[in-house]
């Protein structure tokens, strides 16, 4: 099994103080860790990408276990929707930087921790330099470009990538980019194109799931440091929280892998936003051509009793949270239910934020609907600017 470079061969192992010996006594009395293992933990440097759902349990457990140096990369701020799963943050932290919030908790758990925080987005420009300062990278990000960036930077710097990923009630975990093991690209050579499925329509995650998967990542990280057990390198663990089933699939190093194969075509970091086809996704893809309407304009027209047909393309469970009294056709059902719409009427389509409804408007335009427009900012903008009593989600 591949392990991190033996830090003890470079430097003398760090000495544990009496306070540390007491603190780690339940480790020290088990042969798989012992004094030698605890010294390895103290000497180890782990970089956590993200202080969110996966990063919370990861950072908490690694800190408690006595990992000596923990780096965290995050540039986000705590908000109320994080608290359902990001257990390192509390209600009082809402509005604070996640790094500041996480620092308080981690230092409170273990004052012996050398915590290094990086208030930045991980990019192709800073990843290699950052990764070189650590032994292991634990990936707790939430998007495809960063997943590929973390993988490639791990391969290029020779650092193991402890991977975890979650969606709704399913999770995946593995250890990539060990010396002879497969990398993320061996499993997924290319990212799926954006937009095949409306992603935010299906968003959401069972709050406990990142705990389950993040703790698996923490376990794998500690095993790599100790050089104990069988790592998940070469295996993909699939977690189904609803069925409470754990399955594993075999992963193989792909000889044709562009970053870790025999004929490598990727020898430096690339533009991952472009690679994943998300360049410019922030600006609406169809924005140039699609008619837009602001929430203020819509309110004015509705108040004036103008003939407007409000089309809600969200999911039924979102409609239950809040709605504008619109006609509900989830985006995925629109093609087969298009006959329910009257193309002679003025239609205003909306979703939560405006992304799905942009797709709906583009689709309806193509289908010959002339008088259709997209509500900018969706029902969230309505809740912020028109009806502030409406719940936001």
């Amino acid at each position, binding site marked *: 099994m591949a392990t991190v470079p033996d830090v003890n061969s470079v430097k003398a192992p760090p000495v544990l103080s009496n306070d540390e010996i007491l603190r780690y006594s339940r480790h020290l009395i088990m042969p798989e860790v012992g004094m030698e293992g605890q010294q390895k933990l103290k000497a180890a440097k782990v970089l956590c990408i*993200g*202080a*969110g*759902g*996966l*990063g919370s349990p990861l950072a908490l457990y690694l800190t408690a276990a006595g990992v000596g140096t923990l780096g965290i990369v*995050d540039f*986000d701020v705590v908000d109320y929707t*994080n608290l359902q799963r*990001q257990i390192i943050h509390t209600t009082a932290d809402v509005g604070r930087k996640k790094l500041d919030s996480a620092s308080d908790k981690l230092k409170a758990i273990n004052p012996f921790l050398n915590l290094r925080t990086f208030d930045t987005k991980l990019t192709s420009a800073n990843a290699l330099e950052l990764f070189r300062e650590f032994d292991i990278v634990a*990936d*707790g*990000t*939430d*998007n*495809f470009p960063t*997943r590929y960036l973390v993988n490639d930077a791990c391969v290029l710097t020779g650092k193991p990538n402890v991977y*975890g*990923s*979650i*969606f*709704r*009630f*399913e*999770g*995946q975990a593995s250890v990539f980019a060990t010396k002879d093991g497969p990398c993320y690209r061996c*499993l*997924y*050579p*290319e*990212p*799926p*194109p*954006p937009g*095949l*499925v409306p*992603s*935010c329509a*299906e*968003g*959401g*995650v069972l709050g406990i799931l*990142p705990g389950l998967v993040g703790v698996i990542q923490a376990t794998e990280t500690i095993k790599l440091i100790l050089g104990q057990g069988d790592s998940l390198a070469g295996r*993909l663990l*699939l977690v189904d929280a609803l*069925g409470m089933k754990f*399955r*594993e*699939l*075999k*992963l*193989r190093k792909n000889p044709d892998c562009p970053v870790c194969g025999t004929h490598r075509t990727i020898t430096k970091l690339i533009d991952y936003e472009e690679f994943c086809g998300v360049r410019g996704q922030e600006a609406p893809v169809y924005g140039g051509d699609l008619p837009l309407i602001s929430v203020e304009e819509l309110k004015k027209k509705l108040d004036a009793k103008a003939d407007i047909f409000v089309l809600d393309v969200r999911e039924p469970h979102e409609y239950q949270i809040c709605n504008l009294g619109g006609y509900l056709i989830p985006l*995925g059902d629109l093609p087969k239910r298009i006959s329910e719409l009257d193309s002679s009427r003025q239609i205003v389509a909306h979703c939560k934020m405006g992304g799905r409804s942009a797709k709906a408007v583009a689709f309806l335009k193509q289908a010959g609907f002339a008088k259709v427009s997209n509500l900018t900012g969706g029902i969230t903008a309505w809740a912020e600017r028109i009806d502030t009593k409406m719940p936001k989600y």
Partner: protein
Amino acid sequence: MFIPFHTCIFHQYHSIFICMTQIQIPSPLRQYSGKQAAVDVPGKTVGEALAGLVSLHPELKRHLYTDDGKLRAFVNVYVNDEDMRYLQKEATALKDGDTISIVPSIAGGCGVMICRL
């Protein structure tokens, strides 16, 4: 509830057993499989089983296949615990008790949950 991984149906007209393979559907695709987590389909090879799946649930087709009928490059298909790319791909023969899994790319972790397939 016990769900058999593999079932064989006796086809009276042809007087033969038709073996069914179970295909595990990942949650992002279940909206196109009538909410089913697993679908039993007939087929002697992985390709036949997947073709059977999309004929039962036509909405799955564009998520699994390109317009010219090829399996999409980012769709990972496993037979039991083995990637079919390291077997005989879609020509991989199925035997009694085999399970096919479609494994999606998921990227959720700290904030927005993203899955594309």
